[in-house]
């Protein structure tokens, strides 16, 4: 087994997901079968092969540093689950 239920719980915390015991068990077994399928990549010799992160070679696509119109605070906040004045409301972060 490549991944234990404890590691699954750790990854869930990193991913900010919560799961029940039953879900953790199912995910452990499913993720392991997927990771086993991935093992075949080890057969490929990639010595000296550069990684590819994008289909087209592009770097530093910049525009002129000029202000353009943007969303109004009301438009930007219209979907907020919790709003106070012109801010998003969240539970207290700092004690």
């Amino acid at each position, binding site marked *: 087994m490549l*991944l234990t239920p404890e*590691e*699954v719980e750790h*990854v*869930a*915390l*990193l*991913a*900010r*997901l*919560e*799961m029940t015991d039953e879900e953790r068990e199912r*995910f452990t077994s*499913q*993720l392991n*079968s*997927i990771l086993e*399928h*991935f093992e*075949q*990549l*080890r057969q*490929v010799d*990639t010595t000296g*092969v*550069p*990684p*590819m*992160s*994008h*289909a*087209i070679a*592009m770097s530093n*696509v910049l*525009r002129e540093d000029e202000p353009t119109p943007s*969303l109004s605070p009301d*438009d*930007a906040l*219209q*979907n*907020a*689950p*919790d709003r106070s004045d012109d801010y*998003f409301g*969240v*539970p*207290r*972060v700092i004690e």
Partner: protein
Amino acid sequence: MSETRELYDLTAHELSDLLSTKQVSAREVLDSVWGRITSVDESLHSFILLTRQVAEKQALDVDERRARGERLPAMAGAPLALKDIYCTKGIETTCGSKILSGFVPPYDADVIERCRAHGLLFLGKTNMDEFAMGSSTENSSRGATRNPWDLERVPGGSSGGSVAAVTASEAIVAMGTDTGGSIRQPASFCGVVGLKPTYGRVSRYGVIAFASSLDQVGPITKDVRDCALMLNVLAGHDSRDSTSLDVPTPDYTQALIPDVKGLRIGLVREFMEYQGVGVDPEVAAAVRGAVDRLEELGATCDEVSLPHLNYSIPVYYILAPAEASSNLARYDGVQYGHRTRQPIADIIEMYRKTRDEGFGAEVKRRIMLGTYALSAGYYDAYYLKASQVRTLIRRDFDRAFEDHDLLVGPVSPTVAFRLGEKTEDPVAMYLSDVCTVPVNLGGLPAMSIPCGFSGDGLPIGLHIVGKPLGEETMLRAAYAYEQSADFHRRRAVPIDTREGRRSAVVRA
């Protein structure tokens, strides 16, 4: 066979001829399509939101402008179905997810602005696998969509709602997105035309992100001419997407000449046989038949091997979830969408409960997979390794294109599978993408066009892959084949599930 065809049965270019000569109004076209939606969508569930008032206003505008003598774009008045993945100002956009339920975007995606400017009519939002993660449209928070050719089968995915809508003439044209085959695989399963453009050809601005280095927007249509017309609407540079290509956009309808003489076409061995396992014999036979037809029409065809395509599935299912785990971090219950109502002790718990309640099982599985592949100690073994093999896949394509203009093969190893058949086995579901994912990894353009039917009457698609920005060559071969084969004229007739389970087939 001569019979009266309903307006909803026509293609966009046929309707365009009737509209521009004022034989019909946009309002009449809309009413016909609306009647069709009313009679079949209960069985199919292609749509998850209908926007009749928006479409009526757009139709009125098109008719008024035409009455004033304005010359309108070719697609003006064509009823369009939109995958629920594009931000549409003032219209709810959920990406098939509970976590975005109630989200009303304050702005339009670039492709939506283009469709508005061209006068298309927005019928509504179509069903999809949640965040485009799936190959069957069963992973939607809103329930599954059914295949119009057989209501017991999936339409494919993730753009299954858009594809089913066009297939059943609930829309004249539709739009989808393709990250690993999500336009082409359902187009193949439903026997319509679907095109994924070259990465960067169409702007991703305002399209809800799944895997940003792979995602592309594309059209789903009843024939190749409509596909070219829709690509004319969608393609073009957009400074709001830093990966958008700043190159001239041709008129794609100019590519539609029924002649493939001199084209060099390679049948990809690894599309026909992944890791030694062959595709379904009926699929293989239909594809070989299409290759023979292209040869009869004057193309030169041979077989070509791209060995690293045998690693496409592990490469894709590491890279796409890795990018997704990062892209989906934004759904935290703060700026938009669902937030948990359970009591919480701190903000981390709010994030975790919100995401647990808002995401479905497949999305969670991919976030977990991607987070693991990027986590300390595993990055080199998974993400880096997969990125290197991605380079080898692209090099295989580049080598094949040194002496070929197009590559072909099946779109998927099988015809449409049954509802529920693969939902409990993620790896089996992932394997239905073997032929489509390498194209996204390479950033190439590709399309699916109908090339036959199985003994059970289920459609089979021909996969045509082009060089970067080679959409015109691809469309030319697709058009030549379509005009000689005529599969595109068959229409699915979904029968109401309350009366019978099997749908019938008629020739239009």
